[in-house]
């Protein structure tokens, strides 16, 4: 599903965020990406979502070479990659329902279809009763689940999460991981960046460790 071939991303201000990185993540796999802050986790995820372009090397996602993807095709690529952020990135002036609906609205789906799919996604994350609420009235864990519902509502084959449990207590974090496992069970490929080593160690998934932009460890599932 994801293949990196000697990928380097250099920022003019701060040097290499990712350097000479090569790895492959299979379809239907779930994996963690760990390392200190500044190790290049976010940059790696941004390269997959085409929020950044690599300085050198090739990134293949879902059989497509992103380096050959013209600019106008980027939106269509992103529709196949659900992205989850530590700060949720919700619109505070819209209801939960409207927030989750954004990807479907962007795809130009009809009103009924959107309502149906959004409720299905909210049901999956256990927030069906909160569809009319404003995101800021929700707890941190609930806001993160709204973000997750938005990432999966268009049923992308690949979901990326950048520190999804960064602000949550251990119990909520485990709940979120449980959600991810459920998505994985229905075939979604997941790559989750996290520095919560205790949480990762408790789960039986492949783990990539980054340090200063290099892949230093690739531990497969036990």
């Amino acid at each position, binding site marked *: 599903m994801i293949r990196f071939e000697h990928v380097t991303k250099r920022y003019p201000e701060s040097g290499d965020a990712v350097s000479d990185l090569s790895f492959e993540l299979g379809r239907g796999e779930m994996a963690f990406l760990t390392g200190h802050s500044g190790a290049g986790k976010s940059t790696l995820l941004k390269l997959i979502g085409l929020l950044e*372009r690599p300085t050198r090397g090739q990134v293949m996602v879902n059989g497509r070479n992103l380096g050959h993807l013209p600019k106008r095709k980027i939106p269509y690529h992103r529709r196949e990659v659900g992205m989850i952020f530590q700060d949720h990135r919700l619109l505070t002036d819209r209801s939960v329902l409207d927030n989750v609906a954004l990807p479907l609205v962007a*795809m130009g789906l009809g009103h009924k279809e959107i309502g149906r799919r959004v409720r299905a996604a909210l049901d999956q994350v256990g927030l069906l009763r909160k569809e009319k609420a404003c995101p800021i009235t929700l707890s941190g864990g609930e806001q993160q689940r709204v973000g997750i519902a938005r990432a999966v509502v*268009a*049923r992308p084959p690949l979901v990326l999460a950048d520190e999804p449990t960064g602000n949550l207590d251990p119990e909520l974090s485990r709940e979120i991981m449980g959600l991810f496992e459920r998505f994985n069970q229905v075939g979604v490929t997941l790559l989750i960046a996290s520095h919560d080593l205790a949480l990762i160690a408790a789960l039986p998934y492949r783990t990539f460790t980054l340090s200063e932009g290099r892949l230093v460890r690739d531990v497969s599932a036990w």
Partner: protein
Amino acid sequence: MQKRRPISRRGRGRPFRVPSVWLSRHLQVALASLGRLVRRPFPSAMTVAVIGIALALPGGLYVLTKNLEALSGSWDQSAAISLFLRSDVTGEQATALAGRLREHADLEEVRLISPEDALEELRGQSGFAEAVDQLEENPLPMVLALRPTGDMVAPEALDRLREELTELPEADFARLDTQWVRRFQAIVNLAQRGALLLGAVLALAVLLVVGNTIRLEIENRRSEIEIMELVGATPAFIRRPFLYTGAWYGLLGGITAWLLVSLALLLLQGPVSNLAALYETKFPLAGLGPGALLSMLGASLLLGLLGSWLSVGRHLATTEPR
């Protein structure tokens, strides 16, 4: 390289898209953009008012020149040539000449004014009676009052006719009574050109006003735009609400301009009627008229659209991935 697959892997293909969905999306975005303006009435009204005033100025000037044109048009009909005959021309010769001129293709009416009639007319005018009575002999020449045909309106043609008449052996000189009408028309033409120039300058101002307003709107909604980009919205989709907002600003500004011009006409109709009454005539002020109103609204809508398009092109490009 693998072919692009549909968004879902679970049996659900691409959604079936019909034009009505597309149309209803546009309608929805258009109404949402309008709703956004209405929800913040004060700043929106300020922008609309600025656009309205900017468009009302050339619009008003246009109406003014149109009315002046109508006024000079009514005088055009009375374009006349006075042919003064030499003093040695007798009454019979003058009558014969008048008869010959009646056959002239360019002349519609020929009227002989004898010196006696002219003197009577002069006496009839207030203030001249005493002066006329003091005259020992009639100093007035024989005059032929000529009215050219309706299609003789071009100044050049009238000039040619006047010269032709001057060369008649009986003629002393011919005076074209349209000189001042032509000057007036030149002034109207100048005013029209001025309206056009003013319109161009103010159209530029409208572009800048709309462009700046849309720029602020983009800044305010930056986080929303970023999220829309993250979830795979196309640039066209992201641009759309801003373009509609600009178009609404333009259209509402155009309507405001129309209301302002109409109000001005309403306030001016009274004094104009008074003035016309003093000249013992009627002069109903012409408004914009449906054609000009439609072009004004269309132009203002396009200006709004163009202004937002320019702004969107400049300020949305900055959120693309590096």
